[in-house]
C-alpha cells in the first residue's frame, strides 16, 4: 500500500465523514428536517466502499474518476444547506447528474480491453471503443451539469425540495432546453455504459453480478435525477437506498476481484522465481494449480513424434480428460498444439489466460520440448529393451530346438552305433568305433554351441551357481570363483553377465592364459563382475562383441591391463 494511496484514502474518508457529520448535525435541509439518518448511513457506507475500491485498484486508468465519485457521493446533499452560498447549493444540486457518468467511467476503466497488456478483448479496436466511451460519459456529465446550472432556476421550480434558491449564475431560464440537454446527456452516458458492458461480456457469475450492480447504481441515480423525487418521500428514499446498495455491491465486487488478481500476481511471481531457480519437471503443474487454486490442474504436453499427449516425465497419458476436470484449455504456438491444460470447470479461461504470462509461457514451451524429448527417449529405450528381450527369447528357442532336436538324435545315433559294434566282424569294428567317436565329438560340439546360445544353467542355478559349475568343469584352465551377488540381476542381465564371462574365458584361452579369477560383488545398486587372467596377449574380441547387449542393459564393460595381468570389468544395474 503506497503512501499516496493511503493519503488519498484518508483525505477522501475525512471529507466523507465531515460531510456526513455536517449534514446530520449542523444543517437541516430546506424542508426543515435533517437528512434521514438511514439515508446518511447508506450514503456514507457507499462512499467509503467506493473510496476503498478507488484506492485499491492497481491498474485502473480512470482511478481519478473513481476517487472523485467516492468523495462527491454525498455532495448533492449540500444543496439543502442554507448556510452555503446559493451558487454552491445550485452546483451541488446539479451534481446528481454527474454521478452516474462517474460510475460509468469506473465501469469503463475496469473493462479488460482498456488494458494493453491483456490478450483478450481485441487490441486496437478495444482501445478506440474505450476512448469513445470515456468521451461520451464525460461529455454527458458536463452537458447535463452545465445545462442544469446555467438554464434552470430552482426558485421558479414548484417541485424543488433542496436548493429552492434563486440561481445566481443563471443565463436564461429555459427548463425545456435543459431537459433536452439532460436527455441527450443521459443517452450519451447510457451508451457509454452499454459500450463498456459489451466490450467486456461477463465471464463468470461474479462478474455478471458486478455489471448488474453498476447498471443498477447508474439507473438509480438517473431515476432520482429525472424524477426529482424528495428522499423524504418513500419513492425517493427507495431510489437513494437502491443506488447506494448497488454502489456498495459494485465497489465490493471490484475490491474482491482486485484481491484475487493480487493473490494471483503474487503466486505468479513466486512461480516465476521457482521456474527461474531451476526447472524441475512437473513443477509447472503444481505451480499453476496452486496459483489458480485448482489442485486438479494438469498439464499434458504434446509429443509430436509419438502422436500422443505425455506428462512432464514423458510418460503417455491416456485419460486426457479426467472426470473431475471438466475444463480444458489448449495452448498453441503458431497453430501448433503445445499442451492441454485440464482443470476444474470452476477455473475460468480468463484466469488460465492471465496465469500464463510470458514467463510461464516460455517455461511451458520448454517443458513441452523436454517432455517430448523424454517421451522419445522412453520410446527408443523401450524399443531397445524389446529387441534385447526378443533376442533373448530367440536364443532360448534356438537352444531348445537344438537340444530337443539334433542333440537327442545324435545321442540316439551314438547309442545305435554302440549297439552295432559287437554285431559286425572285428575287421569292421574300427570303422564303427571311428563313427562313434565322430558322433560323440558332434554331440560335444552341439552341446557347446547350445550353451553358447543360451546358458540354461544360469536360469536354474543362478549366476554364482553357473560360474561355480563352469569352474568345476573347466579342465584346461583353472578358474577361481569368489563373491556371490545372489539373484540381484534380472534374468536377461544374469544371462548376459554369464555370456560375458564365457567370452572373456574364450579370449583368455586364445591368449594363452594360465589361470583365471572371477569375482563378483553387489555395490549399491549395481553388480560388479571382474574377470582377471594372466594371458600374455589379449584381444578381447569375444567380449567386445557383447558390448551392445551390456549397453542395452544400461551397464558398463571395460577391458584393461597389460601383458600378464588383464581384467574385464562388467557393471550391470540390479533388478529394481
Amino acid at each position, binding site marked *: 500500500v503506497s503512501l499516496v494511496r493511503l493519503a488519498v484514502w484518508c483525505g477522501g474518508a475525512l471529507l466523507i465523514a465531515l460531510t456526513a457529520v455536517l449534514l446530520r448535525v449542523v444543517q437541516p435541509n430546506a424542508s426543515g428536517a435533517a437528512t434521514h439518518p438511514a439515508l446518511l448511513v447508506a450514503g456514507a457506507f457507499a462512499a467509503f466502499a467506493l473510496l476503498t475500491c478507488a484506492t485499491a485498484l492497481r491498474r485502473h486508468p480512470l482511478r481519478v474518476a473513481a476517487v472523485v465519485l467516492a468523495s462527491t457521493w454525498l455532495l448533492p446533499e449540500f444543496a439543502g444547506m442554507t448556510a452555503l452560498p446559493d451558487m454552491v447549493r445550485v452546483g451541488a444540486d446539479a451534481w446528481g447528474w454527474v454521478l452516474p457518468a462517474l460510475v460509468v467511467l469506473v465501469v469503463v476503466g475496469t473493462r479488460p480491453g482498456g488494458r494493453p497488456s491483456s490478450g483478450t478483448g481485441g487490441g486496437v479496436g478495444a482501445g478506440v471503443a474505450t476512448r469513445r466511451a470515456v468521451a461520451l460519459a464525460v461529455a454527458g456529465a458536463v452537458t447535463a451539469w452545465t445545462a442544469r446550472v446555467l438554464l434552470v432556476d430552482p426558485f421558479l421550480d414548484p417541485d424543488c425540495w433542496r436548493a429552492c434558491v434563486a440561481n445566481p449564475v443563471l443565463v436564461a431560464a429555459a427548463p425545456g432546453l435543459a431537459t433536452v440537454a439532460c436527455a441527450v446527456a443521459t443517452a450519451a452516458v447510457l451508451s457509454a455504459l452499454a459500450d463498456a458492458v459489451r466490450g467486456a461480456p461477463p465471464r463468470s457469475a461474479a462478474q455478471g453480478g458486478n455489471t448488474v450492480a453498476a447498471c443498477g447504481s447508474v439507473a438509480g441515480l438517473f431515476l432520482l435525477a429525472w424524477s426529482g423525487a424528495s428522499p423524504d418521500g418513500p419513492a425517493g428514499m427507495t431510489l437513494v437506498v437502491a443506488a447506494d446498495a448497488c454502489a456498495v455491491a459494485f465497489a465490493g465486487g471490484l475490491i474482491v476481484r482486485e484481491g484475487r488478481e493480487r493473490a494471483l500476481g503474487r503466486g505468479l511471481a513466486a512461480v516465476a522465481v521457482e521456474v527461474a531457480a531451476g526447472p524441475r519437471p512437473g513443477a509447472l503443474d503444481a505451480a499453476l494449480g496452486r496459483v489458480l487454486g485448482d489442485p486438479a490442474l494438469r498439464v499434458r504436453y504434446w509429443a509430436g513424434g509419438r502422436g500422443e499427449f505425455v506428462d512432464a516425465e514423458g510418460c503417455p497419458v491416456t485419460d486426457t480428460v479426467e472426470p473431475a476436470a471438466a475444463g480444458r484449455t489448449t495452448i498453441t504456438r503458431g497453430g501448433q498444439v503445445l499442451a492441454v491444460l485440464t482443470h476444474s470447470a470452476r477455473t475460468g479461461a480468463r484466469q488460465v489466460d492471465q496465469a500464463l504470462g510470458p514467463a510461464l509461457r516460455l517455461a511451458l514451451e520448454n517443458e513441452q520440448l523436454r517432455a517430448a524429448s523424454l517421451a522419445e527417449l522412453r520410446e*527408443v529405450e523401450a524399443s531397445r529393451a524389446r529387441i534385447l528381450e526378443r533376442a533373448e527369447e530367440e536364443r532360448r528357442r534356438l537352444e531348445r530346438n537344438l537340444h530337443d532336436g539334433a542333440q537327442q538324435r545324435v545321442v540316439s545315433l551314438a547309442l545305435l552305433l554302440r549297439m552295432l559294434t559287437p554285431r*559286425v566282424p572285428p575287421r569292421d569294428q574300427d570303422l564303427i568305433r571311428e563313427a562313434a567317436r*565322430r558322433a560323440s565329438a558332434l554331440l560335444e560340439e552341439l552341446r557347446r554351441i547350445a550353451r553358447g546360445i543360451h546358458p540354461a544353467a544360469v536360469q536354474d542355478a543362478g549366476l554364482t551357481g553357473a560360474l561355480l559349475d563352469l569352474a568345476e568343469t573347466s579342465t584346461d584352465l583353472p578358474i577361481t570363483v569368489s563373491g556371490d551377488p545372489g539373484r540381484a540381476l534380472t534374468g536377461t542381465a544374469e544371462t548376459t553377465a554369464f555370456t560375458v564371462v564365457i567370452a572373456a574365458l574364450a579370449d583368455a584361452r586364445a591368449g594363452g592364459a594360465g589361470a583365471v579369477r572371477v569375482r563378483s560383488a553387489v555395490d549399491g545398486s549395481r553388480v560388479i563382475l571382474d574377470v582377471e587372467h594372466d594371458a600374455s596377449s589379449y584381444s578381447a574380441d569375444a567380449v567386445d562383441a557383447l558390448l551392445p547387449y551390456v549397453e542395452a542393459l544400461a551397464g558398463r564393460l571395460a577391458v584393461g591391463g597389460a601383458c600378464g595381468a588383464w581384467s574385464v570389468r562388467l557393471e550391470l544395474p540390479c533388478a529394481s
Partner: protein
Amino acid sequence: LLERNARLQADLTSAVEGVRASRRRLIEATTGERAALRQRLAERALPAIPAVAGLLRAVPDHADPTASRLIAQCRTELEEIAADLENLSRGLHPRGLTERGLTALGEIAAACPIPVTVSVPTARLPAEVESAVWYVCAEAVANLVKHSHADSAAIHVEIRRDQVVGEVTDDGVGGARLDPDGGLAGLLDRLAAVGGNLRLTSPPGKGTTVRMTVPLR
C-alpha cells in the same frame, strides 16, 4: 535460464541419439551373432554327418539282419540330424543375404508351398537395411502361408529416390491384423532402428498387403 534450457535440451537430444545408436548396434550384434552361429554349425557340426555316413557306407553288407537294420536306422538318424541342422541354420541367417543381397529373397519363394513372384533390385544396400527388409518379407510370407489361404503371392521391392519400398501381397482371405505379440510386430522395432515403418492393409476378402519403407541414408 534460456541457456540452461538449451543445454538441457541438447543433452536430452544427444541421449536420444545415443540410445538410438545403441539400438542399432544391438541389432547388428544380434544379426552378427546369428551369422556366426550359422557359420559355426556349417563348419564344425555339419561336416561330421557326411563323415559318419561315409564310415557307415564303408562297412560291407552282412548276413546279420540286425546289423543291417541298425545301419539303416543310423542312416535315417543321420538324415534327420542333417535336416534338423539345415532347418536350424536356415532360420538363423539367410545364407544368400550376405552374398547376394535382396535377390536372396528368391530362397523364400523357392521354399514356399504356394507360388510367389519376386521382383527385387539387384543393387546392394546397407547390410542392416537388407536384413530388416529380408526379415519382414520372410515373416510376412510365413504368415500368409499360415493364415491367408492364398493361391499366389508376390514380393516386390524397389528403390524410390532415397528410400526402399517393399511390399508383400497375396490374394487370400484378408482380415489380417497386427498381433502385438506376433512375429511381424516383433520386427517393428527392427524396422524402427533403421528409421523404417510398416503398414498392414488387409480388407476382408481382398487379400493382404504388408508395405514397408526404409530410408536410405
